[in-house]
Structures are given as C-alpha cells and as structure tokens.
C-alpha cells in the first residue's frame, strides 16, 4: 500500500509532465507552476485531486533574484496535508499573474491584499482595488525596496540604541511630515479627486437592471465609527428599499503593516506582536507563530510545554467564544445583560492568563521550543476550580436562557445562510465552516501539537445561519472544557522548554507554513527565512479577514437590519482583519 502523499506526488508529476516542477530550492517544498498553466493546474487540483479548499494566497518579493512569487496553499476538506504551489514572475512592472477567483472564490480578498501590498496584478480578478491601504496611496508597502515614513534601518536591532543611545523621538525627526509620497498622477489638493469613486463603482457594477429601468438604489455606509462593527470597520451597502443588492466591506482603518514590521523584527521580537493580531485570542496567535518557526528550526517543545500550550489555547478559545456570544447578542438586541454574564466567566480565565503569563490579553507566553515559564503555584488549583466546578454549569445556564429565546430564534434562524458548498468555495474556516455542516477542524483534520491524544468531538450544525453559528460556539466551549479536563489530568512534570532560551535564534534558510485552529478559524503563518536573524517574508493568514470574503454573498437578498447580526456571527477582530 502506498501512502497518500506518495500517490499525490506521483499523480501530479504524471498529470503535469511539463509546466509544473517540484520546488528544489533547499528548505523549500511544493510545486513551481508555469504562469501559463496556473489556471489549468489549479482546476485539476480542485476537480481531479479533491483539493477543494484554498487556504492561503500570498506573495513574496525576492528582490535579489529579481522575482516575485505567488504562493498558494490548498487542502482537502476531508483532512490531511495540503499542496503548496507557486508561480514565479519577473519583478518588472506590471507583475501579472492570472487570478484564481473563478476557481476558488475565497481568493478574492487575498489577491486584493497581495495587489495592495505587493503590487501583483491578478488578471481576471473581478474587483481588483486596494483593500487595506487607501486609493491614492503611493507604492506597495510590502515590497523590499519600499520604506515607511519613519524608516530607520532595514532590520532591528537599530544601531543607535546601544552603546551610544542618544534618545530621539521618532516624530521629532520629521516635524513637518514632509516625507509622505503621493503617486505621480495624484494630488491631495485636487478637487476632482473622489476617494470613494472606485468603491461605489464596484458596488454599482453588479447592480441588477433587468428591465432597463434605472430604479432608485441608494448607497448606505455603516460604520466605520459604530459599536456594531466591533471596531473601525465600514460596510458600504447598496439597497433596494430595505433589501441588500450589493455589499462591500471597507477595511484597513487599523492597518499598521504588521507583516512589514515582522520583516524588520527578529524572530523572537515577533512573538509579542502576534498578540496584537487577534487580541482576544493572543495565546492562539502565539501558538501558530511558534509552530511555524519551530517547523523551520526543526525543534519540538517538551512534553509538559505541549500540554501547557494546549491548555492555554483551549482556554483562549473559551474566552473568545464567550466574548463572541456576548457581542453577538448585543448585535441582536439583547443589550449588554448577556454580554456581562459572559464576560464575568471570561474574567476568570483572564485571571489565569495574568497569573501565568503576566498579562491578561497581551500574553506573549510562547517561546520557540516551549513556553516562557512554568505555571506558578496554585494555577492548577484555579484551573480545576473554574473548568471542573464553575464553567460547565455557567455555560449551561447561559445556553438555557438564550437558545430558546424567541427573539434570538427569529433573528437568527434562516438568516444569513451560508451553504456548505459556498462555505468551502469562499475559504471560510473555523466555527463558521462547521456551522455550515463541514466537519473540518484542524485539530482533527491535520492534528498539530498533541491534539491527537485528546477525546473531543468536532462540532457541526446543519443550516449555516446566524443561530447555528451561535450554537456551534456553545458546543465548542463544551468540547474545549473536555480537552482542558483531560489535559489537566495527563500533564507530566518536567522542563517547559527544550532549548536554551536565546534572544537570537538561528533559523535555517527555507520556508514553512504553520497553521492552527484558532478560535476564529484557521490561523496560518507563512514564513520565509534566508538564514538571517530577521524573516525575509512573514505572512499571516488571518481567519477573520478571509471569513469576511463570504460576508457580501451572505448578505445579498437580506434586509439591511440583518447586516449587523451577520457581521456579528462572523466574529471579526479588527486587529486581525486590518493587520
């Protein structure tokens, strides 16, 4: 019997004798595909080999080689390892690659992001606009020859900090803000410039006008400053009466170019920065990043550290889902009472984080090869008190008084339906995917860390509406409690780090894609190292950003009042969406 991986390699090379070659660079894997054969290759992967789920699309700027590369990760929703394939194009503008939106609609936002930040033009993309930066921004910030306005040096640590630390404040270097560049054909003073033109044109593109009448459609902007958007997030909707004809999310208000910061940072410095991605689930972010870098370094954490990581990740999932249940009910009109009941339980979990990691939300607890420090005295006692005695009953209580409430049922059941096929097509992940009936959970589909040792169920619901997305979170909290109870019983004594703690880790050249099942969905880190102390490319596959791809299609045909509920059920955190 041959292993599935062997069959796959064999098949792909016989299926594509030319046009696709295995990536032979040391430390790299996957396939290099010809630009002209890309669409054919992706279609074959999806239709003949069953790789129906496009996880990640991103670009890499290989400046010294004069190349741009687009990296795709595809998986099967039935589980197992995935296929990585890449397209290389010369770095001269226009850098053009065929778009895969027609095959994997989930690529829509990710390709827009690659265009916005790296300047890779995806020909055939239906709506290729900037997504995180604004129209009228000059340049492509993730390119290696682009410098930010307060640019100091290519890589940290900066040399003027030590040994002659003559302190300067960054803003005093540039008092008149005269380092801001504009594109050649752009003037901020020109009156004719309409920053929203591209957005509104994109909305109008799909305006239905079947009988030739120009009916009265109005454009309404929800946000960016509104509590229901869970941060600074804007939704531009085109309405026909109360019905939504088209909807485009507008994001990037919290954009700080996390990935560029990550490419200036050393590997360890990135750890606290990952906390700031999805700030409600910082332990999960730490987990994904640590896994990706450990994959590159070829090290594994100790047994005890593995258990601590799982404990922390599951506690994070519970606290995140509790927060979601609270905020979603706020969005549906149950103003603040259920939210505070949920937050009360979350506080107890954050107390544990504070005692262990030193901070309630910005935990910065994981290290390469383990965790920062062992649990202090009394932590297990506290975990047992909360997860064995208190929380199961409290979850049941919240569930009991919410799930049969008629307002929640009437606002949730049948609203914002995402079918199973659409959920896969739009690369939706996490609880949203499972609420649509796809039992795809990375902890089972491609077990990482020690998740194969625990007994738990992959929670699914059938209908994929707002109500199911709420209920699947209740189910997942119960399963996480189960995992925590098992982990507490099994955890062995021993050291919590397998390597000597070092502030400058050596990472061999190569690439790695580490992914974890975060509370919001599949959180992936794609890292390219060239052997230097800082990563050459650091990409975050942000689940709440990609889950938003399905937001527009879910809302079309619904009433405008349901937009808030549907957005709430996606569970976005703007720190992660905007990065």
């Amino acid at each position, binding site marked *: 019997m041959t292993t599935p991986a062997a069959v796959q390699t064999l098949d792909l090379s016989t299926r594509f004798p030319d046009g696709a070659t295995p990536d032979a660079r040391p430390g790299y894997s996957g396939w290099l595909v010809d630009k002209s054969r890309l669409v054919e290759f992706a279609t074959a992967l999806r239709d003949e080999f069953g790789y129906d789920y496009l996880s990640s699309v991103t670009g890499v700027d290989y400046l010294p080689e004069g190349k741009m590369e687009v990296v795709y990760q595809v998986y099967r929703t039935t589980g197992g390892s995935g296929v990585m394939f890449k397209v290389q194009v010369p770095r001269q503008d226009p850098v053009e690659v065929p778009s895969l939106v027609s095959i994997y609609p989930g690529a829509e936002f990710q390709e827009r992001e690659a265009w916005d930040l790296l300047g890779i033009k995806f020909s055939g993309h239906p709506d290729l606009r900037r997504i995180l930066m604004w129209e009228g921004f000059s340049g492509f910030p993730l390119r290696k020859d682009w410098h930010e306005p307060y640019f100091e040096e290519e890589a940290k640590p900066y040399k003027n*900090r030590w040994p002659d*630390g003559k*302190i300067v404040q960054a803003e005093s270097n540039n008092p008149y803000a005269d380092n801001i560049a504009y594109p050649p054909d752009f003037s901020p003073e020109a009156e004719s410039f309409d920053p929203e033109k591209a957005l509104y044109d994109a909305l109008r593109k799909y305006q239905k006008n079947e009988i030739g009448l120009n009916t009265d459609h109005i454009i309404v902007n929800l946000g960016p400053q509104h509590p229901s958007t869970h941060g600074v997030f804007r939704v531009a909707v085109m309405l026909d009466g109360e019905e939504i004809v088209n909807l485009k999310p507008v994001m990037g208000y919290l954009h700080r170019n996390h990935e560029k910061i990550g490419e200036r940072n050393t590997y360890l410095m*990135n750890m*606290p920065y990952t906390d700031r991605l999805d700030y409600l689930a910082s332990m999960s972010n730490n987990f994904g990043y640590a896994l990706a870098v450990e994959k590159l370094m070829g090290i594994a954490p100790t047994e005890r550290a593995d258990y601590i990581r799982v404990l922390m990740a599951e506690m994070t999932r519970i606290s995140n889902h509790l927060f979601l249940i609270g905020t979603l009910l706020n969005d549906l009109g149950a103003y603040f009472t259920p939210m505070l009941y949920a937050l009360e339980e979350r506080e107890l979990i954050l107390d544990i984080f504070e*005692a262990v990691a030193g901070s309630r939300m910005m935990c910065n607890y994981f290290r390469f090869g383990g965790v920062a420090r062992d649990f202090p005295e009394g932590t297990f006692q506290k975990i047992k008190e909360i997860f064995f005695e208190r929380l199961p009953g409290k979850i049941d209580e919240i569930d009991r008084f919410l799930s049969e409430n008629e*307002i929640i*049922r009437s606002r949730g059941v049948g609203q914002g339906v995402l079918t199973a096929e659409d959920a896969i097509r739009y690369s939706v992940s996490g609880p949203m995917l499972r609420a649509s009936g796809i039992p795809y959970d990375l902890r089972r589909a491609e077990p990482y860390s020690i998740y194969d040792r625990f007994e738990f169920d992959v929670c699914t619901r059938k209908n994929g509406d707002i109500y199911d997305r709420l209920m699947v979170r209740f189910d997942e909290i119960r399963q996480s409690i189960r995992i925590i109870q098992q982990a507490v019983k099994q955890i062995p004594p021993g050291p919590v780090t397998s390597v000597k703690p070092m*502030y400058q880790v050596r990472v061999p050249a190569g690439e790695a894609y580490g992914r974890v099942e975060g509370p919001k969905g599949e959180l992936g880190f794609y890292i390219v190292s060239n052997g230097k102390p800082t990563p050459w490319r650091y990409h975050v596959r942000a689940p709440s950003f990609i889950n938003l791809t399905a937001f527009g299609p879910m809302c079309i045909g619904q009433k405008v009042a349901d937009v808030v509920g549907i957005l709430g059920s996606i569970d976005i955190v703007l720190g992660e969406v905007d990065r």
Partner: protein
Amino acid sequence: MNDMYGKGILKGLSVSLKRFFETYLDDLSWIGRRYNTDAGIAHRGSKDARGIFTVQYPEEKIPVPEEFRFIPFLVYNEGPNGEKNLLCTSCGICAKVCPPQCIWIVRSTDPATGRPIPDPAEFYIDADICMNCGLCAEYCPFDAIKMDHDYELAAFGRHIYNKAMLSKPTKYYESIRPENATRENAARAAKLAARTAPTKAD
C-alpha cells in the same frame, strides 16, 4: 415559534432577577466584608462569586499576581553610603531584544583609558512606546532589569524615563516578586559556588 409569545423574554428576565437577588444574598452572607476588604475582593474574583462582581476602582484594587508586568525598571543594590549600584552592566541585550526598540543606553567609558566600563552612563526607556512584553527582563543575564507592578502612570506629556527615574532598590524588587527573587538569588549563589569551588581545589 413557541407556543406562548414572550416566554423567552420572561425566562431571560427571571435570570436577571435571580442575579439581582444573588447580590443581596451574597451581601448578607458576607456582611460588612464583601467590599473594601482583601478577602471580599478575592471572593468576587473566585469561582464562588455570585451577583455583582465588579471592583470599585480606585477605592478597591485587585492585587496583581507576581508575574504581572508593566514597564521595566532597573534594580540597584544600595551601598553603605547610600549610593546606588546598578546591577546593569550596559551589555545592551535588553536594547537588542526590545521589539519596539524603546530602550536607549549610553555606555560609560573610562576617561583615562577610553575603554568601556560596565556601567550605563544613561539609560532611557520611552514608556509610551514600550509594549510591556517583558522580553528585556526575561533575557537580561544579570537580573538587572525587571518588570514593575505599578500600572498607574497617567500623566500629561510623554513618558520618557531616564536612569534616575528607572532605578529602584533590590528590596522593592524582592517585595513585588518574592518567589522570582528567591529563585534568582539561589541560582546566583549556586553559580558563584560553582565558580569558586574548582579554584579552591587547585
């Protein structure tokens, strides 16, 4: 749809009402001790918490755990004449590991020889940029920079701390992190013993 319209609302309101009364029941069983006492604050943050769990800041404060971290400080040993001997050797590891690069160190040089001496001439931390990650304290090989517990630092203007503002005595460190201090002192003593033992044998 339910058989009776409004049943869910009544059920939800009954939960709220139950919580409302629970606060008073808890008040009765903790009479006089639920507020403004350490035991009362701990009770409201424990698994047995019932009813209102909010803490009336700033009249009441939740005690921070030992590992809590907020803005680094420099540890010094007090000399016999009250001089402050910083443990810092200005090796620069904290400045190199700092993710937002908010630490600035000026190394002293010996005026006679021009060689660097292990003592910082100046040490700045831009606390507005500091992200409280604690990496500087974690990777300092001399236990010279530690994370503080004092989180009340509202002020007008920017927080740029110099060496004088950052220096705090060893006693203060031992008072906020007793377990860590004991562990580190033991490790240092063991290291010293290991270093001196072979020389004695020679």
